[in-house]
C-alpha cells in the first residue's frame, strides 16, 4: 500500500501536466464539438447553442468532408508505402558495405527532414512549374508533354505526395539504419554458408528481423500522414478544385478561417477516431501475422 502511494506520488507531476495540458483541452474540445460555437458566440456566450451530434451529422452529410477524407486516404494509401519503400531502400543502400562515405549520404538524405518546410516548398513550386520547372524540362526529354503539376486537379495530389515523400523519407531511413545495424552479422554469414544469394538474404534474414521496426515505422507514418496539412497549405491552399484539401486543412478552414470552432472540433474528433481505428487495425493485423 505504502509502495503504491509512493508510486502515485512519483507519477503525480507528470499526470498533472498531462491532465491539464492534454486531457482537459481534449475534453473541452469535445464539449465544443457538441455546440455551434462560432463568431457570434465569441461576442456573447448567450449566442451559443447546444446542438448534440448535429455537427458530426452535418459533416457526414457534407461533400467537403468526404472529399477531404478521400484526398487524405489517397495521400496515405499512396504516400505511406512509397515513403516506407524509399526509406528502406535508402537504408539498405547506406548499410551496404559497398557504399562509400555512408555518413555523408546519411546526412544528405536526412537534410530534407530538418529543412524548413515553407522554404523547401517554395523551391519545389519552382521545380514543379509548368513552363519553367526542372521536372517538366527533364520529362520533356522523355517526350512527355508539360504537366501542370499544381494546377491540374489530377496531378496536384501526386505532386504533393512526391514532395512529402522526399521531405520525410530520411526520418524513417534513420530508424531503419539503426535496426539494420542491430542485425547480427553471423546470421548473414550462416545464410551465405547455406548458399543464399543476396535476394534470399534480404527476404529470409533482413526483412523478418525488421518486422518490429516495420510496424513502428508504419504506425508512426500512417498517423503522421493522416495529419496532412502544411504541404497543401503552402503549395496549393487546398486547390485546385479542392483536390489537395485534407481533413486537417478542412479543420483549419472551419476553425481559424471561418471561426466555426464547434464544427472544427468535430472534424478533429472524427480524424482522431479514424486514426485510432486504422492504428488498431494495423496492430491487429501485425499480431495475427506474428501468431500465424
Amino acid at each position, binding site marked *: 500500500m505504502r509502495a503504491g502511494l509512493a508510486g502515485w506520488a512519483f507519477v503525480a507531476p507528470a499526470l498533472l501536466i498531462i491532465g491539464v495540458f492534454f486531457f482537459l483541452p481534449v475534453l473541452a474540445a469535445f464539449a465544443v464539438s457538441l455546440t455551434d460555437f462560432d463568431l457570434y458566440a465569441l461576442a456573447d456566450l448567450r449566442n451559443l447553442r447546444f446542438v448534440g451530434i448535429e455537427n458530426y451529422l452535418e459533416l457526414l452529410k457534407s461533400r467537403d468532408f468526404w472529399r477531404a477524407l478521400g484526398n487524405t486516404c489517397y495521400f496515405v494509401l499512396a504516400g505511406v508505402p512509397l515513403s516506407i519503400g524509399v526509406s528502406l531502400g535508402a537504408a539498405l543502400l547506406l548499410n551496404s558495405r559497398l557504399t562509400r562515405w555512408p555518413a555523408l549520404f546519411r546526412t544528405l538524405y536526412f537534410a530534407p527532414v530538418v529543412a524548413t518546410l515553407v522554404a523547401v516548398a517554395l523551391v519545389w513550386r519552382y521545380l514543379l512549374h509548368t513552363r519553367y520547372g526542372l521536372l517538366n524540362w527533364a520529362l520533356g526529354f522523355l517526350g512527355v508533354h508539360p504537366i501542370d503539376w499544381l494546377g491540374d486537379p489530377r496531378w496536384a495530389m501526386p505532386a504533393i505526395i512526391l514532395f512529402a515523400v522526399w521531405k520525410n523519407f530520411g526520418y524513417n531511413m534513420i530508424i531503419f539504419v539503426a535496426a539494420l545495424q542491430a542485425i547480427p552479422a553471423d546470421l548473414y554469414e550462416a545464410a551465405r554458408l547455406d548458399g543464399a544469394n543476396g535476394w534470399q538474404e534480404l527476404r529470409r534474414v533482413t526483412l523478418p528481423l525488421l518486422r518490429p521496426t516495420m510496424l513502428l515505422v508504419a504506425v508512426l507514418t500512417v498517423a503522421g500522414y493522416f495529419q496532412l496539412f502544411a504541404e497543401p497549405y503552402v503549395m496549393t491552399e487546398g486547390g485546385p478544385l479542392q483536390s489537395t484539401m485534407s481533413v486537417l486543412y478542412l479543420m483549419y478552414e472551419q476553425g481559424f478561417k*471561418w471561426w466555426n470552432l464547434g464544427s472544427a472540433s468535430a472534424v478533429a474528433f472524427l480524424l482522431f477516431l479514424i486514426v485510432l481505428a486504422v492504428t488498431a487495425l494495423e496492430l491487429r493485423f501485425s499480431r495475427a501475422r506474428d501468431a500465424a
Partner: protein
Amino acid sequence: MGREGEVIASLLPEFARLHPDIEVRVQQLPWSAAHQKLLTAFVGEATPDLCQLGNSWIPEFVALGALEPLQSRVERSPVVKPADYFGGIWQTNLVAGRLYGVPWYVDTRLLFYRRDLLAQAGFPSPPRTWDEWRHMLAAIKARVGPDRYSVLLPLNEFEPLLVLALQQPEPLLRDDGRFGNFETAGFHRALEFYAEAFTNGWAPPVANTQIANVWDELGRGYYSFYISGPWNIGEFKRRLPPEQQGTWMTAPMPGPDGPGASLAGGSSLVMFQRSQHKEEAWLLLEFLSSPQVQQRFYDLTGDLPPRRSTWEAPELAGNVYARAFREQLERVKPAPRVPQLERIVTEMRLMAERVVHGDLTVDEGAAELDRTVDAILAKRRWMLARGSTR
C-alpha cells in the same frame, strides 16, 4: 498593417507637434496575421484604441460588438465630411444603417492592359462594354495562338467574378442578408461571361500561384488584360523594363452595357468600444483623414485616397495610371455587408472553379451556391429572428 503600418511612423511627428499631450504607440501587424490577432485581442480584452481595418471585416467586428459607432462624431467633425468621400466606399462602413468606420484608403479592381497589343489587334481604346471586351478578347486570342491568352482571371481570386456579379442589378443576398440570391438573371449573366472566358481559351485556367511573375508575364504578352488593384501601378512601374513602360495602361471596368461598377475595397479607420482614450483616438483619426495628410500618405504608400479633394493634388491628378481609378471610384459598390462575407465569396470562387473545369453548368453552379450560402447564413437568420439587430 503591412506597408501602412510602416509608413505611419513618418506621419506621426506632425501629430505630436499639434497635440504634444498625446502619446501614440503604433503596433504593426502583418496582413496575414492581422485578422486572427485582432480577434484574439478582442477575446483577451486588449483591443487597440484606433485601428486600420479592411472594410470587408467591419461587419464581422460589428457582430462582435467590438466597434464604436462614429455617426455623432462625424456630424460634429470639421474635418471628416462624408460628401467628400466616394459614395460606394463610404457605404462599406455602414452596417444596418450605422456608421462604424472612416475610409482611410481605397482599393478597387479594374483593367491593366497592353496598349500596344490591343492596337495591333485593331483596337485604339480599351473596352467600355462587355460586348466590346468579348470582341477584343476573341481577336487577341486569334492573334496570339494556343500558347498565349487574352486575359488573366486567376482561379484562386474571387475578385474578378465578384466584380462582374456586382455590376448586375440584383443584390447578391436577399432579405437583409438572410439568404443567397444567386439564381438571378444577373448572376447567371456574370457567371456565364466568366466561364466563357475559359471555355473560349481567352483566359488560362490557372491560379496566380502558378504564374511565377504576373508582371513579367503581362510584359511578355502571355495575356493582354489583367484585373487587379492600385498597388500594381507601382509594381508595373518598378518591374517592367523602361522600354516597355509605354505599353501598359489602366482602364475602368467595362460593364454589361456601358461603363461598369467595381468592388469598393480598402481599409477604414475604426475605434474600439473598449477604448479608454476615445477623444484622443478620434483626434488622430481626424488628423489622418485630412486631405493634406492623406496626400502625404499617398506619396509614401501609393494607396489611393478616399476623398475627392485629395485627388485634386497635382501628384494624383497628373498620374496617368491613376486616372482610370479616379473614374472607377465614382462607380464602386460594396460587397454584401454580412460577417460571413469572406466565406460566401470563397464558396463562390470554389463553385466558379468547378464551372470552369466543367463539373457544373452555370445553372447548377448558381443553385448549389444558393444552397451553400443559405446554410452559411442559418445562424445569422436565427440571430436576426431573436431580435438582435446585428
